[in-house]
């Protein structure tokens, strides 16, 4: 078996507050293999971004990793601080966020940003770095890369900026990319371009990708496996086809049912009753039980079981497909 690029074990992020400790990420474990895209889905506030930020060491205090381990290419990184983490970020982990402007310096030419990043992480000469900067822009499909290298971020359209960010995330040849809603702000045609780009990079270079998104359609087309998060915990993990077509966790099933689908026509959409609980007001037992149509006494009393060997559903009574609502 090949070694995972990213391996997270029992990751727990805590935020101390006056009213007690909140756990936006609570005991999450998963792996991403080389060349694999793991989709991370779940409602707003489920802890998707927190988990991603924990991996790249970008938790903003007072949030902190309280428990668990993060390994990248076999090396433990969760205890790295300051400079050591900064070096790793960029070198081994690249990031792409929803808003490309957060990753670009508006005052620097695109080419300079790329060249500096390459020089910071790779042992190459300046002229070699400049050459690679053009190649990186070319690779993400910026027409006329050699000329555009002197442009400033504001001279690009939203979709082109996001491509520049991907070029920036890739130019140090990281083995892991964390993409947090990389296409949410973009038009469908641009989204399709960016997703195709991520997929081909993943295939050609064996880069592992953690793709955080709300869009189940994007997940279906891009991801190999999918992790469903609910209230800080993993609700379900498995191959994208299994999880989306035969969800075993009632939460996943509810999410799928509420997604408009061509095949569903004008039928009413399924509604998951209620809303995700706040972190300072989590119910006893399984956090999903107040919204779950199948909840029983066990679910109200005991925390949901952990996923066994990183697969399946964290549910006392996983669906066996006859009873699914969707």
């Amino acid at each position: 078996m090949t070694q995972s690029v990213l391996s997270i074990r029992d990751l727990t992020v805590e935020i101390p507050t006056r009213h007690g400790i909140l756990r936006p990420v609570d005991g999450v474990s998963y792996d991403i293999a080389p060349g694999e895209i793991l989709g991370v889905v779940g409602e707003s506030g489920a802890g998707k971004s927190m988990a991603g930020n924990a991996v790249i060491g970008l938790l903003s205090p007072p949030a902190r990793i309280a428990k668990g381990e993060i390994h990248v290419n076999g090396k433990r990184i969760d205890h790295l601080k300051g400079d050591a983490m900064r070096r790793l970020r960029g070198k081994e982990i690249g990031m792409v966020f929803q808003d490309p402007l957060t990753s670009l310096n508006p005052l620097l030419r695109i080419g300079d940003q790329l060249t500096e990043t390459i020089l910071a992480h790779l042992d190459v000469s300046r002229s070699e770095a400049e050459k690679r900067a053009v190649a990186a822009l070319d690779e993400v499909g910026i027409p006329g890369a050699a000329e555009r290298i002197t442009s400033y971020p504001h001279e690009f359209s939203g979709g082109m900026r996001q491509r520049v960010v991907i070029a920036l995330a890739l130019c140090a040849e990281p083995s892991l990319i964390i993409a947090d809603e990389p296409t949410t702000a973009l038009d469908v045609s641009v989204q399709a371009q960016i997703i195709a780009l991520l997929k081909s990079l993943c295939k050609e270079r064996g880069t592992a990708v953690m793709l955080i998104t709300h869009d189940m359609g994007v997940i279906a087309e891009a991801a190999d496996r999918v992790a469903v998060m609910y209230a800080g915990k993993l609700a379900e993990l498995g191959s994208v086809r299994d999880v989306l077509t035969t969800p075993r966790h009632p939460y996943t099933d509810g999410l799928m049912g509420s997604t408009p689908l061509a095949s569903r026509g004008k039928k009413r959409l399924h509604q998951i009753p209620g809303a995700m609980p706040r972190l300072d007001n989590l119910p006893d037992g399984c956090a999903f039980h107040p919204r779950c149509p199948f909840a029983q006494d066990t679910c109200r009393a005991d925390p949901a079981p952990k996923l066994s060997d990183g697969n399946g559903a964290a549910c006392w009574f996983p669906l066996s497909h006859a009873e699914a609502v969707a």
Partner: protein
Amino acid sequence: MALVSVANLTRIFDVSKPWLNRLIERRKKAYLTAVSDVSFEIEEKTVYSLVGESGSGKSTIGKMLVGLQRPTSGSVKIRDVDLARETDAAKIDAVRADIQMIFQDPFASLNPRWRVRDIIVEPVAARGGETKGLAEKLLEQVGLSARDAGKFPHEFSGGQRQRICIARALASEPRLIVCDEPTSALDVSVQAQVLNLMSDLKDDLGLTYLFISHDLTVVQHISDRVGVLYLGRLVEEAAPDELFDDPKHPYTQMLLEAAPKLGEFGRDVPPPKGEIPDPINPPTGCAYHPRCPLAADICKAERPQMRELREAKVACHMAK
């Protein structure tokens, strides 16, 4: 007669730099055509959707419908009253009361310092109407509780806030609601609640919607008729089944092909070519020709007119 009829609607923005800059930099005035010669009708008690990518002019059309912006040329008639040209104030007021708008961001569109009750009845109170018990009734109608009337917006989740926006829009008993991306900021689970609520209200109250969205699956789910916009121009119009099963304009075909599909695992989409052109200097002829696989000489020279093709209308020289 259609409830709304939009004819040759055009909106041009002056996006020139200040005159001193123009003088120094020797630049001409610059104009941006946000909406160009758009015509369509909305039948009573139906949902008409406008789809198109960012900058295609969807919101500008929505704003002209509710009277927030004036057309540069062309007209919007609601029940045969042209808001921009009608001189009878009573007629204008009557029509105004019939139209409401819901915006994308339920966070920005509610005054944080007002109680929900006051937010909801505001459009009615402003016209001196009777508001007693109105907020409570509307809150229950949108699936919240009468007790919520005394709360402030920050006490609600995103989906609940969008319900409050809908309650406010319903307060003046409108017949037409313009919804500008009402679910784009929401989770799928919350989106489902809002979409279901909208179709319930349509059935119960006989409402008509202009629904603006860039999400094709949502549009397919909710619409009776769909118009596709590209660079301010209407390029195709059809019922959703027709549009999605047999798209006729190459731009519509590209959009449908590019949209992510839930059932198609690992589908490799041939990435669409090109970028949306600069609206200040749009291409000649058909605005889509630089990206179009079918483009011929006529497409560069002549802007295609809307024409009937099978069950749809399409503005394309080449569509067959």
